[in-house]
């Protein structure tokens, strides 16, 4: 006899809304006539994400005391809700950008086939966010792995959605293979942890470790290491970042924009919870492990970015480096670090999403990949997008024009507070190195005349109006600059969310 657990439907309402919208979008791929398919599916996606934001905000307000629901497999708390709000917001702007930019308008692509798979695309986007919204609330290793695969598979396909493009297919395949490796590592790690503790729920693992005094147990430590590797894969932190530049470069740019923001939110919110809940006894180990990963990401990401000409590739390495900064917050294992990381994630996501969205516009206009050379004059030709990209990269660089400045300040403060002044110094040096390539983007946009360019825009004449893309970039810009000013309200929200994590 199988006893069904009590289901708290409200706790998973965000996920249900997203899945419902995904289902409708998928049906539209067959039921809605081709000419209506794009606006219909996009509208459904936008509604779904807006609904997701509403339900998650509701959950946030309604769940001041976190609890586990549905047979202790899912957390209904503010940490989950905050991550879900951020994820749905990223999904929303990604849907806006995708309307005009999926598939990307490269030279030689057949305009008649543009709408072939648009319904499926939006369904996948909704499903991916649904999976991410699930993983951030997962309460045991089973739901963790299932939701990880759930959103990963959606992302694999989204990367390859421009299937008449070699780069896109390559990106999808590469992500699939390396991503599977990451998933496998995570799964194996979970098995080892289960082997050591005989439990799969995070709190049970911690209990068991404390009770049986397992904190030096080899099986557990190896399992933890493999779990960390799996999570670092998803967060694209070095040395598990090898897929990042290729995938980010090859994937359709709106997908890249979405991934750069959303996967980091999901992976890092999850990582912070798992480590502090299930492995609180191993803090002495994983704080150092993540500090090492943070340093590796800062060094490798920044140094590799210096040498790139392709802007997408450079921004991909920059996202590796940014993962390093975010992980500084995580590695401290303190509430200060947690809220710093959550804050930084919001500021980072806005800037990361926005910068890739701007690149999408330029790519469309040129019909070829954007490099530092063909970015020349962009700032003067498209003032709004130029200024936006300028502010985004300066926010990455930690200049006081965006939340990146406060975010860096916060993670450095957390590191110092934890007694790791050396990590502050590493972060400062990394910031300095990163300036070189962030400035290269600004230099390319503003300081080189576009007459140097030999490429003409695809269609000639003035670029398409792209109102939705402008709206999405505008939202990202407001968030990016707004996080510089409205620090305290956001920190309070993050603080309340982090109160759900047992430090």
């Amino acid at each position, binding site marked *: 006899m199988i006893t069904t657990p009590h289901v708290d439907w409200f706790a998973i309402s965000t996920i249900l809304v997203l899945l419902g919208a995904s289902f409708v979008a998928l049906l539209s791929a067959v039921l809605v006539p081709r000419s209506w398919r794009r606006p219909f599916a996009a509208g459904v996606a936008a509604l779904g994400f807006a609904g997701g934001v509403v339900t998650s905000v509701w959950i946030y307000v309604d769940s001041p005391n976190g609890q586990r629901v549905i047979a202790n497999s899912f957390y209904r708390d503010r940490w989950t809700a905050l991550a879900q709000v951020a994820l749905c917001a990223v999904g929303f702007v990604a849907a806006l950008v995708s309307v005009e930019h999926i598939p990307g308008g490269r030279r030689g692509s057949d305009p008649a086939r543009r709408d072939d798979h648009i319904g499926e695309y939006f369904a996948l986007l909704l499903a991916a966010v649904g999976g991410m919204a699930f993983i951030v609330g997962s309460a045991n290793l089973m739901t963790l792995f299932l939701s990880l695969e759930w959103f990963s598979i959606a992302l694999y396909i989204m990367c390859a959605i421009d299937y008449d493009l070699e780069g896109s297919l390559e990106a999808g395949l590469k992500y699939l293979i390396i991503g599977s490796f990451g998933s496998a590592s995570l799964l194996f790690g979970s098995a080892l942890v289960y082997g050591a503790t005989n439990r799969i729920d995070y709190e049970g693992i911690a209990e068991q470790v404390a009770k049986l005094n397992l904190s030096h147990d080899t099986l557990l430590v190896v399992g933890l290491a493999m779990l960390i590797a799996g999570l670092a894969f998803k967060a694209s932190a070095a040395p598990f970042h090898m897929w990042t530049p290729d995938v980010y470069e090859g994937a359709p740019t709106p997908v890249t924009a979405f991934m750069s923001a959303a996967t980091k939110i999901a992976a890092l919110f999850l990582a912070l919870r798992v480590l502090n809940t299930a492995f609180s006894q191993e803090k002495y180990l994983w704080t150092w492990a993540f500090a090492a990963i943070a340093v590796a990401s800062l060094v490798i990401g920044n140094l590799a970015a210096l040498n790139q000409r392709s802007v997408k590739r450079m921004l991909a390495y920059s996202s590796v480096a940014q993962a390093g900064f975010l992980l500084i917050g995580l590695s401290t294992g303190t509430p200060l670090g947690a*809220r710093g990381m959550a804050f930084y994630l919001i500021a980072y996501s806005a800037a990361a999403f926005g910068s890739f969205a701007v690149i999408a516009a330029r790519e469309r206009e040129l019909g070829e990949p954007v490099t530092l050379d063909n970015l020349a004059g962009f700032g*003067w030709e498209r003032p709004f997008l130029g*200024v936006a990209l300028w502010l985004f990269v*300066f926010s990455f660089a930690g*200049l*006081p*024009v965006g939340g990146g*400045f*406060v975010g*860096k*300040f*916060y993670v*450095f*403060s957390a590191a*110092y*507070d934890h007694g790791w*002044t050396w990590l*502050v*110094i590493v972060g*400062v*040096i990394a*910031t*300095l190195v990163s*300036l*070189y390539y962030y*400035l290269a983007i*600004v*230099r390319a946009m*503003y*300081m080189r005349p576009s007459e140097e360019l030999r490429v003409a825009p695809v269609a000639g004449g003035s670029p398409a109006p792209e109102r939705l893309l402008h709206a999405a970039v505008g939202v990202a810009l407001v968030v990016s600059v707004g996080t510089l000013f409205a*620090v*305290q309200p956001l*920190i*309070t929200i993050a*603080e309340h969310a982090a109160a759900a994590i047992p430090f």
Partner: protein
Amino acid sequence: MSASDLTTVLICLPIGAAIVVWLLPLSRFATGSLAVLVALIEVALWIEQAARFDYGASGLQNAQKTPWIKDLHVSYHVGEYGFSLFLVGLTVVAMAAAIGYGFWVGRDRPRAYFGLMLFLTGVTVGVFVAQDLLLFYAFFEAMLIPLYVLIGVWGGAGRLGATLKLLLYTMTGSLVMLAAIVVFGLKYGTFDMIASPSSPSRWLFLGFMLAFVIKAPLFPFHGWLPDSYREAPPEVTAVLSGVIAKAGTYGMLRIAITKFPEPTSFYRTAIMALAAASLVYGSMLAFRSADFRGVVAYSSMAASGLIALGLFAGTDLGYTGGVLQMVAHGLISVSLFLIAGAVERRTTTGEFAYLGGMARGRPALATLLMVTGVIALAVPGSAAFAGEFLILGGSYQRAWWWAVIGAAGIVLAAMYMLRLISGVLHEARGPRVGDEAMDLRPGELALVVPLVAVLLALSFWPAGVSGHSFAGNSPTKAVQEQFR
């Protein structure tokens, strides 16, 4: 509106105007007029503030405080002391002149240009009034952003290299300062400059000082200076050397010396030696420099050395002299760079090899350059002389040989300034000085004459600044009390 609100208005008005200029599709003329108007309103607001200021009272005035990041005790805390009031005045006056110059020469892409200049005005005022370390840092960094673009877009042929050098040098200093700020703030539980205690940490002191000596700049941290000063548009160079560089020396006084009394006395000799080296080396480079801007650029480095010498002497005379010299040199350097711009526009070069004999038939140019140059070389009776004399007196009280080096600096100043004046105005007529090279036009006169007039006024009454910079005219006490 109370005088306290004015402090915030002085920051926000130009930034708001910048946003307006960026957003509204105004014509070139409308944009320029709006920018000049806002710059003049800034000057008027400052005069209003200066008139209401209580120069006898100790402690912060015109203060405003609002929490920014309560979590870590960071606040938007601004306010003024006597000396910061004068530096704000220097900023608004210099920026008004620079914006006017940009309008006069008709910079292309006017909306971007004037927006950036206005933004620069706001954040520079912010540096001089911020009373919270993180806020100070934010403004300190924010100055770089418009400067970077102003030099990178409107600069000369070598602008890309110059901007890169400028940014990498100054950001190195600032980021180290950020680390120092984080450590300082968390260690003492507040980022407020007034509430926080003084610190004995030498590492933190050095972290702050690195940012300031690069910004000032002092030898051997001046690598960015020649390129930036040469490649930037003249009015931007004027602001860079006249105002932005003063943020470095202001930081030394307000943060390094005030918050770190023990490390200051520990490193006093070393820093004074660097300052003296900057003074002598900068003066010699200025003397050897082949062009107008080079002379003024290196003389700024010498001036920074002199100011630092005065501040780190740690005596009453040294502090007041340092502040007076900051203001006086700021005005001198803005005037000289604007004149340099005028000369370059007429002859397409600043190199002495192609210049000379410009005095004949150009009385206004000759008079203004002569007057400014003579003030700059610290002829007795000039504002710069008053400042240098106070600094020499102050450093003499520390040890006599500092005064000897300082006096050597004055002799060198006479040498390079006279060389500059004769190289441009006198001697044989240079090959690039054509008959069509006109005298200063009314527009240019309207920019430079007020600056020179202020300088002359300051020469007659240096006590206007030196006697009003510190409460009760006893800077040492004010510094010891950390300006509370």
